């Protein structure tokens, strides 16, 4: 459960406020907002990279302030996927996914057999096994993005935050990514995921509950019509 209480988000000025909102475990939420409305800024605050300007934010049983101080605990609570990963020379897909185990490893970064099993299993579940030993620059955008999802999954956190994870993907890869995200949530009722998106149609089609940034506020819509969503977005 993610709980917002009078949360103020922004760098120096308050960009948006979330007065009282609780996001239940076991669900996938889509964050919708226009360009510059503060989607990324809000997500940065949720993952603890940007301190709140005010209010309280609880991630599970920890406050975000605690998690900002305790790096390792934060990495065990929150996984993050960016909209794009360009690939790194000599970094194979397997090694990239394996980085998700970092919060559980010693200083030498050696993977234990249990870590290796987990990585192999997640790679197989996302149908990436044949690409595992390929260097990441040689993969397609879609394959790399699934790799980022795999990395976040092996991180084994109750919360996953994704910042426009599908913006560089084609229609089929978008759907694949969303389906994989939904099945990750369904596998364990303690899990929550928030992703930002501009793809309102796909979110409505998949009946994903929406968090809409409208007029510097966050509006929660359990079931929405496209008209309602557009009306809220116009207000911002």
């Amino acid at each position, binding site marked *: 459960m993610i709980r917002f209480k009078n949360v103020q988000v922004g760098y120096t000025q308050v960009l948006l406020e979330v007065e009282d909102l609780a996001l239940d475990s076991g669900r996938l939420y889509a964050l919708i907002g226009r360009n510059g409305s503060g989607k990324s800024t809000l997500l940065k605050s949720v*993952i603890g*990279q940007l301190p709140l300007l005010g209010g309280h934010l609880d991630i599970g049983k920890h406050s975000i302030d605690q998690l900002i101080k305790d*790096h*390792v605990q*934060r*990495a*065990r609570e*929150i*996984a*993050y996927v*960016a909209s794009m*990963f360009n690939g*790194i*020379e*000599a*970094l*194979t897909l397997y*090694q*990239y996914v394996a*980085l*998700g185990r*970092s*919060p559980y*490893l*010693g*200083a*030498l*970064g*050696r993977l234990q057999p249990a870590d290796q099993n987990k990585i192999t299993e997640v790679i197989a579940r996302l149908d990436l096994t044949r690409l595992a030993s390929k*260097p990441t620059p040689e993969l397609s955008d879609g394959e790399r993005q699934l790799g980022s999802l795999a990395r976040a999954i092996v*991180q084994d956190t109750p919360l996953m935050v994704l910042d426009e994870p599908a913006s560089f993907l084609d229609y089929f890869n978008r759907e694949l990514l969303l389906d994989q995200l939904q099945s990750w949530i369904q596998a364990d009722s303690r899990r929550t995921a928030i992703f930002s998106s501009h793809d309102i149609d796909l979110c409505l089609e998949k009946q994903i509950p929406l968090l809409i940034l409208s007029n510097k506020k966050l509006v929660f819509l359990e079931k929405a019509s496209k008209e309602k969503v557009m009306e809220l977005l116009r207000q911002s």
Partner: protein
Amino acid sequence: MKAAKNYLLISLISLIILASLHLLVFQRQDHMSSALLFWEFQVPRLLSAILAGAGLSLSGLLMQNIFQNPMAGPYVLGVNSGASLFIALVILGGGPILLSQLSLVSAAMLGAFLAAGLMFYISTKVSSLQSLLVIGLMFASFTGAIESVLQTLAAPEQVKQLFIWNMGSLQQLSAAQAPWLSTLVCVGILGSLLMVKALNALVIGEFQAKQLGIQVQWVRFFVLLLTALLAGSITAYCGPIAFVGLAVPNLARALLKTQDHLPLILFSVIVGALFLVVVDVLILLLDPWMSLPVNVLTAVLGAPYVAYLMLKRQ
């Protein structure tokens, strides 16, 4: 992982063979056999080749990691220049008290650390690889110019001392100093090994490394400290040696095809040592005809490889 083990084994065996060859060539050339000469000249020279090669390529690997730039290295980014400048200040401008060996080494390390910190600060402001390399080059020219100014003001004897130091030499390390440099390089290697997890995570960027539980600021400071320790102390004892720190870590990644820094650190250390031992064997073999400074040969062997890497990146 298996391929990495094979490469490590092969490079380690080559290093042992070349190190033995180094001792043999040295002996044949100078017709020296007494135990005293062996311990006073041969061993320190071999040790300084091994330590300088290992330390410089390790500091190159570390810098390439935190700058997220495969073309970074202690020489191109001005860490050596910082050390050189401070050395020049000590040799040319310092009082007699400052001229003790320890102060030369600590001055070089301080200069290296300041230069590394400055370049890192600049790298957070400019993201492009080209700009950063040009700034490193300008920094080197700038420190070089200051050295020239100092030289015009100094006594001829001091200028000569600095000139010889600037050529780079593996013969300056005395038997008494060898344990110091060995300790510093070992500290550098052990310190790096303790950061393998953080270095691996930093490969995908600071933001992501933070999300993986790495205390990025602390790691960055520690890496700069180790780089300055390695590049600074080696530069102090052996002069500014170019290309080792840039070329060897790139070779390591290309051959091992990995971003796991445990094999990368070990391979860079061994192959860096191997590289300078080979260079010094060549210097010894060519000695009857011409006496080459280290820097000339590392450039002859290293520069084409680095140019090739740049071309391949296009």
